[in-house]
């Protein structure tokens, strides 16, 4: 913390004139969205001629079916559209040659494709991806819920298993809100915002970019730039996957499911204070969600919600 030349008000490090000028949340969102769209268009324009790839389906009922798709353009969702509407609406994740693959990422070579949904015998890939997606949705809701004068910094969400009872999203709020304790009404309004996003059925669009471009997108947040560097270091190809939902661009720790519309019951259950860090007071927002295919009766949902209010992770 340093004071400005007149010595009137202490400024935070990110507000010094040396860093980029302070933008409002809406402007920042728009800026990142534009950069994402431009990069997406640029990557699409790199494909000048359509080459064909052969995709073998491993979907129960369509075993061994061969599809001829476009290289670099067709996604697993396109392949599902060749089957039935149920396959399109219920597929959350795809398995390309045994590896989890987002539904909206284009296929690049001949491969075998399996479509994963929530009612399979072994849904652990889908479960993990679903929990991560719900945490990402919670992060998006929190980013856009506060008034313009309060800053919100989303941190890396911890990877919690589904059996722990709730997904969580760590964040640091403006220091003026250190004494704010969220009331029931506040949690309900966050839940309403989340349901708005679910109603719009927005896709989680993945984009693989170079670390330098990712750092450029997050130029207004040093924490996010550090996160991008860490992800680039641990990924095999050296590329970073950015996700966009609506107009919110973020980086995630793993694969996400196809669309927000796959969640049906969604509740923001609690916001716990974890303690002071160098960025500020660390808070953990927790929520509970169930997908469309596994809805719970309201009595069962209440019991699960009771567990989700306790601190997790």
């Amino acid at each position, binding site marked *: 913390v340093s004071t400005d030349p007149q010595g009137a008000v202490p400024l935070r490090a990110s507000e010094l004139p040396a860093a980029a000028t302070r933008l409002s949340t809406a402007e920042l969102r728009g800026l990142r969205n534009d950069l994402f769209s431009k990069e997406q268009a640029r990557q699409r324009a790199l494909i000048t001629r359509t080459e064909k790839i052969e995709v073998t389906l491993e979907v129960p009922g369509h075993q061994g079916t061969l599809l001829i798709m476009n290289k670099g353009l067709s996604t697993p969702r396109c392949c599902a559209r060749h089957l039935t509407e149920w396959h399109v609406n219920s597929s959350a994740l795809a398995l390309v040659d045994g590896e989890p693959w987002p539904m*909206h990422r284009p296929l690049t070579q001949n491969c075998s494709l399996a479509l994963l949904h929530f009612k399979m015998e072994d849904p652990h890939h889908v479960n993990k991806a679903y929990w991560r997606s719900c945490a990402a949705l919670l992060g998006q809701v929190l980013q856009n819920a506060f008034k313009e004068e309060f800053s919100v910094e989303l941190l890396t969400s911890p990877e919690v298993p589904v059996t722990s009872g709730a997904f969580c999203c760590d964040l640091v709020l403006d220091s003026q809100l250190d004494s704010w304790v969220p009331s029931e009404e506040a949690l309900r309004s966050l839940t309403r915002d989340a349901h708005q996003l679910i109603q719009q059925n927005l896709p989680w669009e993945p984009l693989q970019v170079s670390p330098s471009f990712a750092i450029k997108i997050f130029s207004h947040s040093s924490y996010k730039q550090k996160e991008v560097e860490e992800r680039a270091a641990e990924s095999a190809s050296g590329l970073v996957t950015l996700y966009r939902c609506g107009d919110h661009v973020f980086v995630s720790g793993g694969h996400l499911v196809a669309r927000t519309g796959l969640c049906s019951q969604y509740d923001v259950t609690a916001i716990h204070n974890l303690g002071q860090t160098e960025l500020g007071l660390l808070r953990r927002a927790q929520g509970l969600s169930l997908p469309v295919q596994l*809805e719970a009766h309201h009595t069962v949902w209440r019991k699960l919600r009771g567990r989700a209010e306790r601190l997790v992770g």
Partner: protein
Amino acid sequence: MALLCCRLLRLAEPVSGASRLLCPPLIRPDSCPPVQALRNLRTATWWDEHLSQENVDFLKQQVPEEYNRLTASKINPLKDEPWPRHEWEPGSRRVGLVGVKLGMMPVWTKDGERHVVTMLQVQDCHVIQYISKEEYKSKTAALVVGAKNVSPFYRTEKQMEMFRAAGVPPKQKLSVFKVTDNAIIKPGTPLYAAHFRPGQYVDVTAKTIGKGFQGVMKRYGFGGQPASHGQTKTHRRPGASGPGGDPAKVFKGKKMPGQMGNIYRTTFGLKVWRVNTKYNILYVHGSVPGHRNCLVKVRDTNLPTHCEKNQQPPFPTYFADGDEELPEDLYDEDMFRFGDESISVV
């Protein structure tokens, strides 16, 4: 499956609206469908459709435990913010009970007369809600009483909210009792059979056994027509429907075939012969509308001839945490008890 020939189509899929130039005009981008369909939030599913067997067993075991916890803490509902208890005055009305009709049995008086009684068991009876006379838009306030715990999986969210507000498990039947202001009870209080004492008179209301659409002979006891001697297709019909040409109409309320039973009826002035406090059973005189195991509403009688026998009842109700210790069975003084001595020599 014969998909090989028809599936070899080329499809370019634009992911966002920005790259519209590349896609053919027929294919719509998926991220913004032109018609925003409203999602239907009502689902046609039952409560354990998506639960594993372990979860179902766990819930089945946990729900009764939760009910016991809710009711156990209410044995002393007056420990926190007790509502004031008033004394009985002539003209005050107190709350009633909702019970389950178990069956009938004979009783004998000390003079040797045989009567029949109906057994009504009070199972998990709680006061759910208090409605003040302004809200109820009447001269007296009202209390809503519920009886017999049921599963929470077949009750709607609104009903569950009401039960949660009272702190009781969800009930099968709710009844409204009009009470005077000196007899109001805090919601959540349990009600027991000892609320009524032997010698009091009660009215019992219940839905009669439904007989469905019945003809006029069963419904009103009409005579019908003879079985033989030339009757053409007329054996159980009503016959004439009115006087004839002078009114030249059929009067309103003419007894005709229709729905019989499954309506609320009250039997008045039933004497309580015996009260069992261990199993919460009331033995009321005679018969009561309804089938076995149906829920009936029991209240102090309105008949003026039995008013003096209903004086000084437990008011506003019998509280289990009170000082009085009741024996297991309370008998009316006229009733013959089989354990008594038949002859005593002085």
